[in-house]
């Protein structure tokens, strides 16, 4: 029984999650571009590669913008978090071994110790974000139940992964929880606020284009 569930999570569910993720992403972006074509033609007129990249770059370099310097702790945590949340699953040795076993494909991986630290960073950052949501009145005012749910969703594959990896008590079950939560997270990205991952270059790029091209001003 346990074995069946494991095989399901290890095989078809991974495929499903990836398909929903990739399909969802393509769908969301094409739908957005289609809608813009229909109702926001100006976006295409004003989109300007140079200014878009200028703005995106300024917002991807830590402390390049005024607001990032005003919130140094948040900036640091946010950058470490985003880097870790993307890089850890992609370059985790255990993940790459799984891929190698299936397709004989492999790539560079993180030393286990580093991956451990990065995982801990993700979890700690989620805790930090949760505290922000609870303690800062303005953030609390904006927080909805779905924001808390997403935070939990992001944290769970990392917590369970760490747990299973270190073979703490009950790790076989936790491992399955890890796989399931990871798959749910992946599939949820295109259909929740996590979509900001794809939309960031578009919103920032468009604003950078309007500020740079039309208003001749900086936007950071």
């Amino acid at each position: 029984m346990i074995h069946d569930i494991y095989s399901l999570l290890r095989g078809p569910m991974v495929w499903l999650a990836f398909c929903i993720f990739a399909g969802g992403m393509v769908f969301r972006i094409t739908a957005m571009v289609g809608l813009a074509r229909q109702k926001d033609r100006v976006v295409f007129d004003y989109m300007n590669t140079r200014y878009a990249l200028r703005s995106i770059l300024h917002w991807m370099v830590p402390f390049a913008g005024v607001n990032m310097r005003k919130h140094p702790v948040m900036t640091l945590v946010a950058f470490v978090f985003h880097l870790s949340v993307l890089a850890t699953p992609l370059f985790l040795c255990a993940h790459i071994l799984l891929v190698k076993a299936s397709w004989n494909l492999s790539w560079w991986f993180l030393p286990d110790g580093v991956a451990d630290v990065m995982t801990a960073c993700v979890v700690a950052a989620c805790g930090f974000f949760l505290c922000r949501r609870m303690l800062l009145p303005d953030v609390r005012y904006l927080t909805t139940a779905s924001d808390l749910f997403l935070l939990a969703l992001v944290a769970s594959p990392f917590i369970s992964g760490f747990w299973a990896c270190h073979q703490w008590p009950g790790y076989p079950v936790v491992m399955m929880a890890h796989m399931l939560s990871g798959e749910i997270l992946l599939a949820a990205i295109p259909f929740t606020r996590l979509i900001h991952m794809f939309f960031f270059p578009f919103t920032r790029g468009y604003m950078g284009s309007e500020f740079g091209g039309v208003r001749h001003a900086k936007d950071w």
Partner: protein
Amino acid sequence: MTKPPAKARPHFADEGIEKGVQKLTGESITPVIRDILKTEGGARLKVYMETCAHCGLCSEACHHYLSNDRDPKYSPAGKVRQTIGEILRKKGAVSPGFIKTACEIAFTECNLCRRCVMYCPFGIDVAYLMLFVRRICHRLGVVPQYIQDTAHSHAATLNQMWVKEDEWIDTLHWQEDEAREEIPGLRIPLEKEGAEIFYSVIGPEPKFRAQLIYQAAVIMHVAGMNWTMPATPGWDNSDMCMYTGDFEMTARLKKAHFETAMRLKTKRIVMGECGHAFRSVHDVGNRFLGWKTEPLPVVHAIQFYYELFRDKKLTVKQKFDQPVTLHDPCNVVRGAGLHELARYIIHETCDRFIEMHPNREHNYCCNAGGGVINCGPPFTKKRVTSNSVKAEQLKAVKAKGANIIIAPCHNCHGGLEDIIKHYDLGMEIKFLGDIIYECIKKT
């Protein structure tokens, strides 16, 4: 989750809002909103609303938030949540009472200044979203009375201040007469076809600040410019309709303005020191007419004066001898990047310049912009108390010795004047034109 206890919203009676709301019912609101969402609510609305991470990093950008004890209701994303957020969540099924509050938030608690855009990691355009709410209010007939009156004036007269055609011409003649006492050969050329410059102003100039036309005429004369003003409607470059959400009228106004300049076969439009008018001509109105940029070059006074000094068309007789500071108006700094040019002019004309902080793109709005001052007396007190952070900024620069604020924007003048009075700052506000007029060699 539980929300922190919300402070009650203070009530401001405004006839335009009250009477407008009285005519609404739940059933009449929903179809209108759904229609707007269907026809005008496109990718920008959707993407902004769905990308916002509810992170609150925009809060401290907003002077309303900073000045109201950091009340979350006044944070940019907080205002979005209370208005368009709720409208989308309920798919337009909102009550008349909700529209009343939404109208007040969108019209009087956001200046569409776009400072928050520079603080949001995603560049979410809260000004666009608030304007969307204003558009809904406009379509529902719920708009603060005073600003709606100016919009009516725009519709009836093509200017903001109910100035009649003969009054306009009379005012120009009057200013010409006055100026000829100082400089005998001076003219304010009316309807001069083929002039290089079409000089346009906002409605309040002939109505309340006619001396600015006098000063501009002197500057044009001294610099030897080939310029003209029209004797017909189309002279006014201002536009409150873009702030009430009446975009059809915005298009009409800009069309009249551009066409008047073209009828006179002028090469470019030079406009007086106004911020919102520049936004309307350069960034907004042209779009509603299907022009990516303005159909003929439009030059703001700051850039124009800069060119005159750069090309040595004006020379300074004696520099202005009191220390000055500069308030960077949103619409010509975040909206046009003219901040360094303004400083160039100040360095040419003034002895001592003291920066206020923050400055340039990061300056705080005067809280008059975005049509907020045009919502009139019912909201004056709220407008000044909601910008105590500006008062602090001014106090700090005054402590450094600057008693004179240069603000190259009409709206900023109005807003700063009220702030100076309310907080008893005892400072004086000037246009660049005032300083230039005072300092240049006239013969």
